[in-house]
């Protein structure tokens, strides 16, 4: 029963037309929920969470830094999975997703880097450290740029998406290896043993706003992906009957 539902959901969402209808229904309420969740998390973190006993108030950058980093990583992994589906099964919706996921993921990676640097300066006196996390994030940004550049260079949209998907698949493996190799190189050249976050114990009063802003960021990501996927669906299916009807009816 459950399996049948999953299978039906997969096939329905796999159809661009169904996804377009589905997202038309979902977006009007998902967008405000995402915005409210995000703003609540950030405002709670900025104004109502207690200050850190060591870092004072500069730690409050965590409420954008960690959600952005997690969104960036999840986005790349999702792109790799979509890439696999697109390359192996040639599913149209997966191709569309690869294109829709990349831009906001790259934006979140850039945010993660900038906020990390701005957090680093007051905390340990430098904007940039070649530690495992920041270096991996920088490489992640390069790989997002690679996927976007490859997509833009190939004219045929289906071919572009599948090429980018294959690159994203290889990239996912690379992210994991880069993380461990940079950790290793830091043990080789001792000296940069600074820790980014004191991760062991986090006060619940600090944790809840972090979880909320994280959820909010993911929801915003979902909204962004849906809007971009809808554009791509219209572009690809412009010759099909249902898009023509939609355009004739004036839009939604």
């Amino acid at each position, binding site marked *: 029963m459950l399996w049948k539902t999953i299978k039906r959901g997969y096939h329905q969402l796999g159809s661009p037309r169904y996804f377009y209808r589905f997202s038309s229904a979902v977006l009007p309420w998902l967008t405000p929920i995402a915005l409210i969740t995000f703003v609540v998390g950030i405002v709670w973190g900025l104004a109502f969470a207690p200050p850190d006993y060591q870092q004072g108030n500069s730690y409050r950058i965590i409420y954008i830094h960690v959600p952005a980093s997690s969104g960036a990583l999840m986005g790349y992994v999702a792109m790799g999975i979509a890439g696999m589906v697109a*390359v192996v099964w040639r599913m149209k919706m997966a191709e569309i997703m690869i294109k829709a996921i990349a831009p906001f993921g790259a934006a979140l990676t850039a945010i993660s880097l900038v906020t990390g640097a701005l957090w680093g300066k007051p905390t340990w006196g430098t904007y940039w450290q070649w530690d495992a996390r920041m270096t991996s994030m920088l*490489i992640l940004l390069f790989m997002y740029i690679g996927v976007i550049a490859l997509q833009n*260079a*190939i004219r045929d949209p289906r071919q572009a998406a599948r090429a980018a998907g*294959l690159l994203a*698949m*290889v990239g996912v493996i*690379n992210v994991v290896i*880069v993380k461990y190799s940079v950790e290793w190189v830091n043990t080789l050249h001792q000296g940069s043993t600074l820790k980014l976050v004191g991760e062991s114990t986090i006060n619940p009063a600090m944790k809840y706003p972090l979880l909320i802003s994280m959820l909010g960021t993911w929801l915003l990501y979902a909204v962004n992906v849906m809007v971009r996927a809808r554009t791509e669906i219209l572009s690809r299916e412009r010759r099909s009957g249902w898009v023509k009807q939609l355009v004739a009816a004036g839009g939604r």
Partner: protein
Amino acid sequence: MRAFRATLMRELLLLWRNPAEIINPLFFFVMVVSLFPLAISPEPKQLALVAPGVVWVAALLAVMLSMDGLFRRDQESGVLDQLLTAPVLPVIPVSAKLLAHWLMTGLPLVLVSPLLGHMMQLPTLALEPLMLSILLGTPSLTVVGAIGAALTVGLNRGGILLAVLVLPLYIPVLIFGAGAVTTAVQGGPVDGVLAVLGALLALTLSLGPLAVAAGLKISSGN
């Protein structure tokens, strides 16, 4: 197996007849390395400090630049389409092509690397690890670079795009390759680091050719 050998011989013969493709990466490697003493300082101590990184980055760039034309000629002459529609799995001729390419471009880099290491004032005990690390590392670079070459084969601005795609993927090999030499200079045990390079090589050799074949299929629109 016969398909593998036939492609290998054909590729080796083609490269042999066009020696610029073998010699240019080698010249590039030597020239880039010799820029550093001029740019940094001819002071032996300073050079020895940066030598592992310099030699490795130069080798990496040499391999990367040699990748650009890997599939282009085959695509223009239509050999690529034949290869993809032939009854043998495309992985087999692709692997043969990669092996031929590495033998003709990667292996010469391995052979001259001790010379360049010496010119960069590396201590003698680090020359063998340098050579071994380049021997274990460049095949990975060739295979991973070939994925990028396969994805950009039909594009006219392939060169710089290839660099953008491939350089982030080269980073683990660079870290452990240069790391092996640095470890040797510091007098540490090199075996473990070389083993990691070997593991990366095993990973790229097992999955890489499949990805290259898939990339070629995508690029040719099949």
